[in-house]
């Protein structure tokens, strides 16, 4: 069964078309990365899936429901590039926030928060304030918060874009472990080709102006991925394939700028 089914989706902001003619199916327990240069609409597409913005046209079905209904049923866990933690709450209280909104009883909440902090290896930091943690740790809190209520779909918008390379690779490994343990489906927006290939079961390559899907690259690297996955010849082949798809999309656009791996402003 598909968790996400997108057909003919477009989004216009005023006179500019952000995305157009999007067709995409995401199966259960998939890890799908959206990759493309700035302005290709990958964040827009993520927000449309999560019902944070409404598409101008087309249809989005999530768990056989409309995106709106899926949001109301709390099917989405969202992680942004910035952790967006509430600095007036402790780490534990931040993770508990969605559970409070969903009116979980206190005791159940407490047990769940403990379990989530264990999952992201932050046991012992319950009573710290977010600003007392490093960027990587803050992002792990944000992931724990997103997963706390067991959403069917985890939407991640360049979650590691603001972190250094070392932290990013470590968190990639952790994310894969969490993904395997939680059994959720992940949609992951990134600028980084190697990150997309390493993490995903499918890489969706997008091209800009207007944003559309230019190619879907299935990633057949064996699971579970390990540190040595990045050294396999197949990994390099896939990285090359994604890179070429990106450039092809670009050349068709006749747009000059080179794809950077830097975070969007």
């Amino acid at each position, binding site marked *: 069964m598909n968790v996400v089914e997108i057909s003919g989706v477009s989004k216009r902001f005023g006179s500019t078309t952000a995305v157009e003619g999007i067709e995409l199916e995401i199966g259960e327990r998939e890890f799908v990365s959206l990759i493309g240069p700035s302005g290709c609409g990958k964040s827009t597409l993520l927000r449309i899936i*999560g*019902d*944070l913005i409404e598409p101008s046209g087309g249809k989005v079905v999530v768990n056989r429901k409309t995106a709106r209904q899926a*949001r*109301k*049923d*709390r099917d*989405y*866990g*969202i992680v*942004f590039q*910035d952790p*967006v933690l*509430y*600095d*007036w709450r402790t780490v534990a209280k931040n993770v508990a*926030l*969605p559970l*409070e*909104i*969903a009116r979980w009883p206190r005791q159940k909440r407490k047990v769940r928060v403990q379990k989530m902090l264990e999952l992201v290896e932050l046991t*012992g*930091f319950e009573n*710290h*304030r*977010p*600003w*007392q*943690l*490093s*960027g990587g*740790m803050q992002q792990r809190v944000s992931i724990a918060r997103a997963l706390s*209520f067991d959403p069917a779909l985890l939407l991640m918008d360049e979650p590691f874009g603001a972190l250094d390379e070392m932290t990013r690779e470590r968190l990639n490994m952790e994310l894969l472990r969490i993904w395997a343990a939680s059994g959720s489906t992940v949609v992951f927006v990134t600028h980084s080709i190697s990150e997309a290939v390493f993490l995903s079961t499918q890489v969706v390559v997008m091209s800009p102006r207007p944003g559309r899907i230019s190619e879907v690259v299935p990633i057949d690297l064996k699971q579970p991925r390990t540190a040595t996955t990045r050294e396999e010849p197949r990994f390099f082949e896939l990285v090359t394939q994604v890179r070429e798809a990106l450039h092809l999309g670009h050349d068709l656009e006749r747009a000059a700028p080179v794809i950077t791996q830097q975070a969007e402003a």
Partner: protein
Amino acid sequence: MATMAAELPVEPRTEVIRRAAARVGTSILVLAALWGLWEGYRWLWIQEGWTWPFIVNDTTMPHLHDIFAALWAKASPGGVGPRLITVLVKGALFTAKEAAAGFAIGALGGFALGVLLAHFRLLQRGLLPWIVASQTVPILVVAPMVVVWANPKLPDSLKDWGAVALIAAFLTFFPVTVNTIRGLQSADRRALELMRSYAAGDWRILWKLRFPAALPYIFAALKISATASVVGALIGELPSSIPNGLGAQIINFSQYYTTQPRGLWATNVIAAALGISFFLIVLIAEKLVVRRAPENLV
């Protein structure tokens, strides 16, 4: 920035004491400097016989030690009855009651109005100019009217001082309203998106996100309002002939200023002390209530 939590140094006790001592020391230095400025200015102007901007003598600028001595002296010229400080503190307590009630009414009302206006943008656009205009009304003119209007409707226990509290509230609510609106709208856009993704209703978004995000703004306003409420209570007392507060003492001593300048100065000192205490109470409340990242404190 990226401090590992586990390595966060626990502040040693001696460090805390050292910083407190430094703060007290600074305050004493500032007070001493102000004292020196006052007395130095006085001495220089008298010495040189300068008359600009005003003639300096015991009437215009009494010695500071004379002002404080006057506080300890008997209030009435005959040397009988209570000390001046006893009379003034009694008056200050009465004024404090008015100011505190006015502050409470103004802060709560101002906050409620802010929440309302932040939620209904149309109302905000229509009403905010009038609220701003309300603050340009000369309070000294309105105060006696408020007393006349409100007094007949107030129960005996609230008579007079209740009306003054309303005047104080009028000066209190405005900064709170403006900063509440600003603060409620300061919540991070993505934090709001997260709330949306949790399917949180407006009410829960208000209490769990917008209100905590607004707290530093609200406290910034409360600090202004705390002193404004004291000023409001004093001004409310002046034209409404309420005998128990500091306002009556101000009128009294200003009538005798040429013969007894120290009395008015002493009243000034007590009024200032009242304003400062109000400010400090809000400051302490803020330290207890607002727990934000250092960069998010207004």
